[in-house]
């Protein structure tokens, strides 16, 4: 986008596309990633609630996983999981 001329910039420098931050994949930041042990998961959703990125979601069976394009590996989900179903594992 560095090729944009001054005329291409919307007047007032307004950003018209909400949520366009998604273009940046913050997943590249992490050194640890969360792994769910679904046998222990009680589907409470607390990992979804506490994720500062909001990148944890449910699959069609109701189990949870992090979107690895964005997960920064902070470890909050693993720390807070009531049944200890999440483990932080080093990135390979």
């Amino acid at each position, binding site marked *: *986008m560095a090729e944009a001329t001054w005329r291409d910039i919307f007047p007032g*420098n307004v*950003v018209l*596309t*909400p*949520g*366009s*931050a*998604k*273009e*940046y*994949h*913050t997943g590249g*930041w*992490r050194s640890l990633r969360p792994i769910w042990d679904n046998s222990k998961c*009680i*589907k*409470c*959703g*607390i990992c*979804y*609630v*506490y*994720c*500062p*990125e*909001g*990148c944890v*979601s*449910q699959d069609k069976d*109701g189990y949870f996983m992090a*979107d690895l*394009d*964005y997960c*920064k*590996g*902070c*470890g*909050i989900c*693993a*720390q*807070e999981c009531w049944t200890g179903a999440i483990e*932080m594992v080093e990135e390979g």
Partner: protein
Amino acid sequence: MSIVENFDLYAPRLIDKGEHFSVGHTGCAGCGEALATRLVLKGLGKDTIVSNATGCLEIISSRYPTTAWEIPWIHVAFENAAAVAAGVEAGLKALRRKGRIPDRDVKSVSMAGDGGTADIGLQALSGAMERGHDMIHVCFDNEAYMNTGIQRSSQTPFGAWSTTSPPGEVSFGQRTWKKNIPEIIVAHNVAYVATANPSYPLDLIRKVEKARKLKGPSYIHCLSVCPTGWRMDSSLTIKVGRLALETGIFPLYEVENGKYRITVDMPKPLRPVEDYLKLQGRFRHLRPDKIEEIQARVNLEHKKLMNKVEQLQSWSEL
């Protein structure tokens, strides 16, 4: 983002499952403020316009030409978030009255850090609260000027290290106690004042929803644990936030019409402050005598608050 369905078993059904703050923001790993924002926006819903002060939240979410905000949002300067929100509120009011925009309830909300609320932003906040604008001011309190590199603010706790209140040969760190902003706002006779903490998400969201429904100014003071500035592991954000409540350091209460109400009970007796302090590097230098001083003061502040909770009647009963 997918819908969380079986959630209903374990949480109130009414949490907005939509995300109004997108992924891809550049907050630190484990950022308490980013989490708080995500949860606050769930309470506010999409019919909200946010006026944001300069600070961590603004910087992590709005690098041109991208934005993490899925709702209308404006940033102008550091000290005027509440003033801009007042302008947005006045503009919407005039436009609705003149029929230039649909007659729909859209809430103006200002968001600022502790600097943009309690220090440089205090005048604008006081003015907006006094004038009675129909708005909410949310203070994300990470207890220092974090975005510029962890300098102290009037919200930095007693004894804490910061880059402008460093402990050294002749200093023990931050010398003053946290300025009580919720108390100041209560004195403005606003509709609603509350403290909030993302470690208690349902309490936070309920309070935001309440403020949103009320007409007139509301104020929410939200603890934002900052692993980077508080010198702790990024995974401990929620745990440390919980300890802030359990030690009585950051109580969760709300004030409506002069009546103080504790919204999340603290343990009796309170947990020792050391449990909270020892997890954070910004307190690592504290000697036992300083920790005792902190404990004594926390005990006093707790008694002061409980005194208000137990003794003060609602203004309508007076």
